[in-house]
């Protein structure tokens, strides 16, 4: 801190104001400044030569945690308790020293800087993965061929956003603009207001749809409200009570060097969390959207297939929607996943955490929150014409089998092999030239007569 004469003749703070400030200072400092050892563990495990946007995303996603598992409000309660204790100690120390400190304007300014920047990078981290529609990608072929009722609410939310990339980009833009406004002291409250409203909706959506981000979004809302509270009284005076309002009168004073140091730090920070991150996210969107695997599948096989013939052992099983072994249709994705619809029950993978850092094999977004289909990643042996399948659902991680494939030409694939249950299976797949109303209506508009 610096001594300054500009602000020194401000009014003294009252006793309860000082105590409240001490409490909030400790609380928000602990929330925003990384002190949790797990964060540094993550930081040092980053491969800086191959820095991915996922890594930067995680760095911007700091949350101090005592509990394990999904984030919980109990972590906040512990922090509050610590802050309360700390505030009492601080008050005692101050009283012991004769109560010299009359105002915390200076410290308040610096606290606000910390939380403004913390909030900004938190928003911008999510903003860019929406601006480049990565967070909710366009539904996969398997998703398009799953019954509406076989999805969880959170998955339907994500799919419904995925079909409109332009809207997703708009939402990302709002988050980024809100974040950028926080980097400048004078526009901080405007940014905080926009963010508070935006995130308030995010919080309610998370509660309603069962997304995993309710704690984190509410935390960011609390930070935004704290940033806004600095100007709350004057805005209420101006807009609600319609009285004259006095502007902020505290201006930080920097010594000559301090100005340059500040500028350098600010630039570096913004460069890393905005420019570099934005650039990497953009190229990630082009080359490697993080929700779906990137390994290419069987060439030219992408599509949905009707299972025209199906044998288990020696028995031909006729078409059936109720038989639990009969395959109803098979989807080959553009990437190396195939999914099979049948009446076999599915224990849901209900993971809903945002993980931009996963490797291609670990990406399970396509089946999270979905039933009705079983999803397999496969590797292709083009010499022997074999597909080695592995069920992607963590509840069926033991399910591995090998299928021989034949492509007699046209759009037919013949699969044969032995399932994990030791039954031999033989399936003839014929690709269906399926037209999706989602796409037909988009192309032709809803005005023309469409028959499907």
């Amino acid at each position: 801190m610096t001594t300054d004469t500009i602000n020194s003749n401000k009014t003294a703070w009252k006793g309860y104001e000082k105590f409240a400030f001490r409490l909030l200072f400790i609380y928000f400092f602990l929330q925003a400044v990384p002190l949790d050892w797990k964060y540094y563990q993550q930081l040092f495990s980053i491969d800086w030569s191959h820095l991915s946007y996922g890594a930067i995303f995680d760095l911007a996603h700091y949350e101090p945690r005592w509990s394990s598992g999904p984030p919980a409000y109990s972590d906040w309660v512990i922090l509050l308790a610590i802050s309360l204790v700390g505030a009492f100690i601080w008050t005692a120390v101050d009283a012991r020293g004769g109560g010299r400190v009359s105002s915390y304007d200076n410290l308040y300014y610096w606290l606000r800087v910390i939380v403004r920047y913390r909030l900004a990078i938190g928003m911008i981290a999510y903003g860019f993965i929406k601006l480049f529609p990565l967070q909710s990608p366009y539904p996969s072929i398997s998703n398009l061929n799953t019954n509406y009722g076989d999805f969880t609410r959170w998955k339907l939310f994500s799919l419904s956003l995925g079909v409109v990339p332009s809207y997703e980009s708009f939402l990302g833009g709002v988050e980024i603009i809100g974040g950028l406004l926080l980097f400048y002291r004078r526009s901080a409250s405007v940014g905080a207001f926009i963010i508070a409203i935006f995130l308030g909706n995010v919080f309610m959506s998370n509660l309603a749809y069962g997304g995993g981000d309710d704690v984190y979004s509410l935390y960011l809302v609390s930070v935004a409200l704290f940033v806004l509270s600095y100007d709350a009284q004057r805005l209420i005076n101006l807009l609600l009570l319609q009285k004259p309002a006095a502007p902020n009168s505290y201006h930080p004073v920097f010594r000559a060097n301090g100005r340059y140091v500040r500028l350098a730090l600010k630039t570096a920070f913004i460069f890393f969390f905005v420019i570099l991150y934005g650039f990497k996210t953009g190229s990630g969107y082009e080359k490697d959207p993080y929700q779906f695997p990137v390994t290419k599948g069987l060439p030219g096989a992408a599509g949905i297939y009707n299972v025209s013939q199906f044998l288990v052992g020696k028995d031909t099983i006729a078409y059936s929607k109720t038989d639990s072994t009969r395959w109803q249709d098979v989807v080959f994705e553009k990437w190396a996943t195939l999914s099979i619809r049948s009446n076999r029950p599915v224990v849901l993978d209900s993971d809903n955490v945002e993980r931009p850092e996963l490797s291609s094999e670990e990406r399970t977004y396509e089946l999270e929150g979905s039933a009705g289909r079983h999803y397999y990643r496969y590797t292709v042996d083009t010499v022997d014409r074999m597909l080695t399948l592995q069920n992607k659902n963590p509840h069926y991680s033991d399910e591995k089998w090998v299928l021989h494939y034949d492509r007699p030409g046209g759009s037919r694939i013949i699969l044969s092999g032995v399932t994990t249950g030791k039954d031999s299976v033989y399936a003839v797949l014929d690709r269906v030239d399926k037209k999706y109303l989602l796409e037909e209506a988009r192309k032709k508009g809803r005005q023309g007569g469409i028959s499907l």
Partner: protein
Amino acid sequence: MSTTTAVTATSWSNGQKIAFRIAFIFFISLAIPNSVEWYDTVIHIDWTRLNYRDLYDIARFGSGINIFGDHLFGSTLLGYANWIITFFISIAGGLIWTLIMRRRGTERKEYNTLYYWLRVVVRYRAGIGIIGFGFTKLLPVQMPYPGLGLLNTNFGDMTAQKIFWLSVGIVPWYQVFAGVVESVAGTLLFFRKTTTLGAILLIGALGDIVYVNFAYDGGVHVYSSYFVLLAAFLLVDDLPKVYNLLIRERYTVPVNFYPSFSALWLQVTRIGLKSLTIFLFLGVLFYLQLVNFLYDPYKQPAVAGVRTLRGNYAVTEFRLNNKVIPYSPLDSLGWHEVEFENWSSLSFTVNKPTPLDLSNGGGDPQQDVNRTFEITGVAGGRRVFHYYADTVDKVLYLEDKYKAIPDRRNRAAGMGGDGYQAAAGDKAGGRRKGRRQGGDDNGTTKAGISGGDTAQGPAATYTSGVEKTPKEGKGKNWIPATALAHIGKEVDKIDPRAASTRRDREYAVAKWEKRNRMVLRYDTIDNGNRVILSGVNEKNDSVYIVLDRIDKNFVLTESSLQAGKY
């Protein structure tokens, strides 16, 4: 009330005065209903037996000057042409007004009082409009929860508009939250001090909805932009103040002018009108909307289905003209699966292309057969038939909910309300089959037929409320008189608390229309776990279908908030 300090009554610059005159003409034009239908509807409201739609229709109307039509350079510019035309006329009017003032030497120094009243008009127009909208979310009926038919439809077999509507329909409590936001925004506009906050909420919520409508092709972009425009007008004074205070960090003195209401009759009138508005649009409308949610959700059929015919059914056997058709996804004759909804609808899928209704399936139809949310915007071979159940003889009389020539919807809403849009030269016969229907509260405009609900069809009249034997005559009576007597009158088949004149009137003029029809006898075994349907389908083929109820165990669990009483 009192005026503020003498600082206020300053003189306005010439530019400000001209701008005000233009704005005055523009916003008054936009705040007044411009369609004859609206006036016709409102005059005929029966205030003793109200339906929520009566008050909703008052609040939702198109506006703007449309005597020169709604097209600019031959196109409606996505529906915004009307605003642009109105704007040009306002400019012309404003300039003429200025000229007249100058000529007559009666130039004024300021328009503080008139500006205040203009803002009052805009505030109340926006307030009641958004509350009408908001209440259909607060009591969540605007986006219905998907029925069994929709739950069994593939995600890719829906339009983007349908996907968006359902994405809110599946979370009724979130819809309630959205309704709270909209209703609160509207209520805040009724009071001076909270107008700014209300306008900010309004612009935020509706700005997002405009974008959503463009992204999902939702069809209500004009009406949502309308609220953004009104809210922006209300904020135009406040934003410079906020900028001055926060960004420029200057001492800011807000200057607001309020006329004095010292005379007693003025005070009484003001408080009386304000109270009446609040009573009607917050009190009465809330009650009517609650009744609608509980007994007659406006996008869902209201009449309960047969008790034993409920749920998801697998087709165990399907015979067409006495020939068994084994199940195959490629076959185009057999039914693949069947759902009996809680209400009186039968839904099934057939692998055969069928013309689709891609409208929003909302609006104001009172008859169950016209509540098309369950068929609009979906493909995948889904068919939905509305049924009349003769529970004595156990026969279902089914009508296809799909109609080749669509109804007009939202007649009172007009162009600016994203309701019916009258395009020049539209006639009933000129419509192509399968054309999308006219608008919904969230639907797009589309020229419907210029007449009423009638289409070519048999002359038999199904009247409600009056005991009448159906007329013989042209077209056959597809439901025999004995069956009609067993079925009863559909208009009466809802909770009496939801009865309204609007519903009675629509049923009274309802006629049988040209639709696909089926007559199926139903036999239930084991409390509806097995159902056998036998009869005649829409192509006059005889069908015999054995259905077994299955437990689908949808991942999507039911909500605790359910509309309708079945």
